[in-house]
């Protein structure tokens, strides 16, 4: 098995897409999409991150076991986020009510 060399052309196309994504993120932030602003921002960020992982970090050309490790990291992150947020969402009706009031310093 020989090493896959990603050509500079691919890198430049990815770089251009990342720049486009950055511009799009800033533009979208100034539009009012109501509750979807955050969804759009995170969506673009995730597409950008995926491009970096697949091409800059060569995940697309890595052996299967490396790809498995990458997928696992996302899976474990999802467990942490989903279960913790589910807990906060269902146990406390309003987190701000339970916030400590000791931060005063005005």
């Amino acid at each position, binding site marked *: 098995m020989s*090493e896959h060399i990603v050509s500079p052309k691919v890198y430049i196309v990815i770089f251009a897409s990342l720049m486009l994504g*950055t511009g799009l*993120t800033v533009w979208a932030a100034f539009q009012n999409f109501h509750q979807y602003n955050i969804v759009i921002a*995170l969506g673009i960020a995730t597409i*950008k991150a995926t491009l*970096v992982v697949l091409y800059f970090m060569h995940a697309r050309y890595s052996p299967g076991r490396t790809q498995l490790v990458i997928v*696992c990291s*996302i899976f474990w992150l999802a467990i*942490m986020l989903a279960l913790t947020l589910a807990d906060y969402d269902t146990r406390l009706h309003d987190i701000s009510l339970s916030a400590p009031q000791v931060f005063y310093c005005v």
Partner: protein
Amino acid sequence: MHRTGDLYGHFQTLEQQKETATLGMWIFLVTEVLFFGGLFLTYTINRSAFSTAFGIGSNTLDITLGAGNTVVLIMSSLTMAMAVWSAQVGKKKLVSIFLIATLGLGTVFLGVKAVEYKQKFDHHLIPGRGFDMKYHPSHPMPGDDPKELALEKNEVEEAFAHDPDINAHGQLYFSLYFGMTGLHALHMIVGAGLLLWLIKGSFAGRFTPQYNTPVEIVGLYWHFVDIVWIYLFPLLYLIDRHR
């Protein structure tokens, strides 16, 4: 340890050695994903509870500096990827040039970050005794745009009318801002140290098509730090910008 050239004794081939090292680096990056993941989780919970304070805190950040830094960091990822390519095709001089470019861009990023931090000190937005979100709108600094300042003043006053604890909740935003960008910057500083080590190696002509594992591995780390920023930028700088 027994070693023949760049090949350590417990590996059969350089390729096997490289695949093993890459896998090891990825496993380290998994721990980093979960480490930063915890911070993003804290951020999410606090932002959903204190959205007004987070919106105002976010609007005090300089979007030009933030977006500019995003461009700088993505450019440094490109030069890092090009350094890996140069090593793979045996262009030794280009390896050094691209590594130095990466280090340069990383340094620019940290410099801009320092300017941003200084601004927050000047505006009394460091969590602690002196923290006051009303301070900056009523104490203009040289170079402030009066129009923008009036908007900020309006926004802060409105927020205080709704939520008298805005200064307490704003500190949560700024604690997370400094904690997350600070840890990110710390990773960049570690990365800069690794780049210096690579640059030294590249001057000695150490990286060849047969052996370029260190460039590849540090590249993985550098791109990971880039990914963290790709998420930090919209989450910290772009809350409630459309208002």
